[in-house]
């Protein structure tokens, strides 16, 4: 692997160097001994982080052990693990959690496959490559709310392009994809796949461009077919990136909110009610802050496991640390 100047060659053609790119130390060892007095430079960012990010996280965990509610006059009390034991009996939440896992896996896995295909294509000398590289960014740049609205228009029973295309092909009539009990979850999963395709593709493309060309050529000279070359050369080099991006995607998708909120609002009948939507409703519609915080904690626990996988992959997978 190249020694990282934190910004390795961008996947698109290089622009004339806008900034000096030097070979910096790998991982950025002490370039210049910065004395201890320099620590005050950290404070402007550290204080807001502690107050508005670390603090609320700890506060949230604490809330999970209380009966905090919106607009209550009586003081909030500690109730131990009561919220958590209630959660074990809350079938709606368990259902929501199951949907969340199904959604996260359902988005992440096909997205990975599609992104890998696209990244492999964009790594080739193809004529439309520049166009594809420009357009692949669209889903990424759009606000999630707009992505949701846009796909509502695609799925629309009458004015939607999906149904119209199906009609043209003689396949069925106007279906209401987002309100059908059986179709709602697959329909939102497809949107999730679409929305996250750019990031995954870019990450994999960067991984591909980091694999040594010479190895590829040597393997080709030895008569290895495309599949053999992929298995023996490309994949081993790509694996750490693939593992990391997959873990991150799972986490992001488990935390997903806006897309599905706009597409279905969690309906029909809770079929697409992701955990984050459940927590939101519980806290801000029903005012059950303590109980909702307990749900959030469960989410954090699961995310932490994935995060651990990600970090372990980071530590064991990278040879460029």
């Amino acid at each position, binding site marked *: 692997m190249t020694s990282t100047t934190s910004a390795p060659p961008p996947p698109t053609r290089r622009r004339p160097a806008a900034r000096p790119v030097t070979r*910096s130390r790998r991982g950025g060892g002490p370039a210049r001994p*910065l004395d201890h007095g320099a620590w005050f430079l*950290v404070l402007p960012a550290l204080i807001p982080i502690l107050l508005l990010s670390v603090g609320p996280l700890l506060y949230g965990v604490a809330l999970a052990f209380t009966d905090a509610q919106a607009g209550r006059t009586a003081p909030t009390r500690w109730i131990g693990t009561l919220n958590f034991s209630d959660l074990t009996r809350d079938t709606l939440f368990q259902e929501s959690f199951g949907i969340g896992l199904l959604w996260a896996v359902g988005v992440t896995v096909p997205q990975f496959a599609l992104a890998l295909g696209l990244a492999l294509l964009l790594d080739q000398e193809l004529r439309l490559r520049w166009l594809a590289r420009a357009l692949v960014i669209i889903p990424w740049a759009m606000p999630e709310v707009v992505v949701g609205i846009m796909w509502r228009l695609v799925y629309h029973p009458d004015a939607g392009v999906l149904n119209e295309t199906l009609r043209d092909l003689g396949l069925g009539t106007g279906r209401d994809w987002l309100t059908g009990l059986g179709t709602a979850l697959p329909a939102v999963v497809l949107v999730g796949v679409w929305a996250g395709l750019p990031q995954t593709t870019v990450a994999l493309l960067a991984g591909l461009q980091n694999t040594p060309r010479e190895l590829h050529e040597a393997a080709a000279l030895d008569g290895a077919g495309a599949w053999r070359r992929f298995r023996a050369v490309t994949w081993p080099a790509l694996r750490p990136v693939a593992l990391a991006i997959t873990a991150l995607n799972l986490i992001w998708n488990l935390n997903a909110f806006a897309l599905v909120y*706009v597409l279905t609002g969690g309906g029909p009948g809770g079929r697409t009610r992701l955990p984050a939507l459940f927590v939101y409703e519980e806290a801000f519609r029903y005012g059950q802050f303590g109980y909702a915080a307990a749900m959030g904690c469960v989410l954090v626990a699961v995310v932490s496991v994935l995060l651990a996988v990600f970090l372990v992959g980071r530590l064991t997978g990278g040879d460029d640390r």
Partner: protein
Amino acid sequence: MRTGRAARAGQYLALTGYLVFLTVPFLWLLSLSFKPVRELASLHPTWLPRDPTLANFRQAFEEQPLLRAAGNSLVAAVSTALICVLIATPMAYVLARRRTPLTTAATGWVVVSQAFPFALVIIPLFLLLRNLRLVDSVPGLILVYVVWALPFALWMLVGHVRAIPPELEEAAAVDGAGRVRVLVSVVAPLLAPGLAATALFAFITAWNEFFFALVLLKTPESRTLPVVLTHFIGAEGVADLGPLAAAALVATVPSLVVFAVIQRRITSGIAAGAVRA
């Protein structure tokens, strides 16, 4: 490496498939936003509006306080960008130039916090901002956005600082410049393109954000664009399609433009993160 003719054809076919998948939804949005009511109601919608009109845009601005919302979004996004870069730069400088267990931990936190479960954090944030009387105000939202955009901003900036040869700073230090002086007059100018890219990234993050805005903003006067967009979808999920599409397009344009400008830097940032992983 040689690729057979059939394989080449397959590759082009696949690439075309991807392009269709990626662009069709957006083209449809574009098409609907210019269609008059009559065509929107048609049971056999066409790709191109036969009778293109701007009426949807006018109606969108009349139906909801779009202009006000865009103003709020703009204030939130610009403030977030400026504050974020201002406070992230010194920290990024320290993280880039010094390697101690503490900076390693801080960098680790930057990675971890990108995976933050907002569903849990939002409840305490709401209570906290309510106590500070900052709920339902754009400044309160900005506070949240700054912290929320910080991790990736730090990530991007650390990379840009590392690309600056430390020798330049040493020269300045030998000439007797203090730490802050070195940062301001040596590092900052060299960092300018990176600062701009980071600021624009923070801008997009804030411009597009929905979850915090939904929870924290209650009155029409303070709402941002993404929140107001959802008001085009009625309670029953029924929407006036034309104005909905038009409003969505209005909200997207600034984001697309900014993204086009800094695309390469963001992608290389993501790529760096992925590769380093």
